[in-house]
């Protein structure tokens, strides 16, 4: 079984992002970039399935600037077998990404696509279900446990009130939640080996997809700042303030 894992290059989760002064976006120049954390979980899950003998090949796909090669290399160092880079400097949105991933899936015929449940930059949380829809496949989103048996997958999902278990038939889409696994660190020998693994580079046009954004960004602003309040000296003072000043209890 072939598994496709899309990986996104995003501003590292430890970076405090700054809105550009011209209001066109956030500052990304000179900022540390990393693989979207949920995508690391997706790669890890794919690698574990391969280690269990349930997967034959893992293809890591990234879409965006040439620098996304680095993100693919990270995936290869974690255990993916080969990479595909769809190179473009267009600001990609989930619909275009899902269409390009569909074109790649049509060609590669994976049985499973594992994606992060959300990217921590645009926080859209959309690509997984969109790809599932375009392929006409079922989806197991926000997965915290995945068990493959024959032609179906049992997925334990993180939902608002707790956990839900569904069974979906293969081929299928999985999106990862936090507790699915703890991604490994790539070892130095694996990082070296990853340099020799192949990465195919293509353009959106090669996949027959117009990547133009459908959402035009009018402006990007700082959110309203919250003023720090004051320190109270004791629990008694805290309760007094909540009762008599804030009047919330």
């Amino acid at each position: 079984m072939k598994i496709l894992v899309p990986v996104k290059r995003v501003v590292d989760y430890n970076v405090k992002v700054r809105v550009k002064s011209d209001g066109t976006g956030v500052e990304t120049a000179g900022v540390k970039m990393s693989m979207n954390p949920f995508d690391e979980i997706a790669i890890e899950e794919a690698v574990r399935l391969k280690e269990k003998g349930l997967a034959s090949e893992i293809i890591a796909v990234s879409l965006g600037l040439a620098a996304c090669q680095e993100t693919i290399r990270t995936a290869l160092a974690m255990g993916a077998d080969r990479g595909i880079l769809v190179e473009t400097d267009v600001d990609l949105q989930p619909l275009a990404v899902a269409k390009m991933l569909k074109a790649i899936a049509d060609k590669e015929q994976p049985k499973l696509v594992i994606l992060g449940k959300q990217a921590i930059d645009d926080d859209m949380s959309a690509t997984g279900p969109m790809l599932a829809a375009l392929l006409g496949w079922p989806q197991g989103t926000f997965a915290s446990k995945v068990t493959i048996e024959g032609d179906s997958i049992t997925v334990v999902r993180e939902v608002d009130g707790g956990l839900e278990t569904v069974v979906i038939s293969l081929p299928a889409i999985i999106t990862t939640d936090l507790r699915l696994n703890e991604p490994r660190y790539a070892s130095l020998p694996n990082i070296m080996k990853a340099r020799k693994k192949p990465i195919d580079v293509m353009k959106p046009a090669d996949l027959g997809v117009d990547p133009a954004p459908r959402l035009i960004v009018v402006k990007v602003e700082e959110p309203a700042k919250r003023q720090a309040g004051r320190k109270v000296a004791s629990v008694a003072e805290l309760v007094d303030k909540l009762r008599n000043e804030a009047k919330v209890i």
Partner: protein
Amino acid sequence: MTALVLIDHEGGALKQPSRSAVAAAIKLGEVHVLIAGSGVQAAADAAAKLPGVSKVILADAPAYANALAEPLAALLIALAPGYSHLMAATTANGKNVMPRVAALLDSQPISDIADVIDADTFVRPIYAGNAMATVKSSDAKKVITVRAASFDPVANEGGHATIEAAPAVDVPTSSRWVSAELSKSERPELTAARVVVSGGRGMQNGDNFKLLDPIADKLGAAVGASRAAVDAGFVPNDYQVGQTGKIVAPELYIAIGISGAIQHLAGMKDSKVIVAINKDEEAPIFQVADYGLVADLFVALPELAAELERG
């Protein structure tokens, strides 16, 4: 211009985040709502009373019983021709279903809107709420999820909508619901609670979360947690408040032993009053707290429980 809002419901009652989604939809024009499920007449009757809703579409069939994304998306696609906007709250259900609908309509979804500027233009948080993007959609049909914390929910009573049965739709059978293991709690839901008491890594273990119980009981509060506490295995993931968990905006948010990582602040900084109790006076949580108490939580929590008891 008419919007259709997919409503989350359980046991005949409508979920509060969906009432916030209706409030957002009202800013766009006429509002219809969709109640899908099996044996859900009571939920449809409840929805008919929502102020500002003119029609309830009732899809009552076994296929919709457990809100699986595949049949719900097929239903919404069948209903889509009558609507300019298809909406839901940004809940596990909304996030599961709406992007699927958007893809089938060749529309880029507009996730988690925090404000409505006009029929095409919306404000949404990006980068864990560290920036607010105003975006304009060029798609014919907008598919939207609504950040419930940003819109005051419409009331439960006051409307008189008609109820109409949805057409029968062929739905995919590639997914099957097996079971749910829902956290049992007498407490209000995190996203609907007036008061939220959350614990972080400072709680040290899952057992210590019991120290929050008397306080939550006294205040009628929901109990939440930071991602650090969830990652450490102290509490289940459905407690998580933050960028990758639930977004809350209660009247009172009490953060206990939570340092205030960006991703946690993203989930609670719109709360009306924020209290932080942390022994590290440099903790970033104090930068957003209205009232901060620098204290060992293991001393402060029993004191707080006793002090509330006295009131």
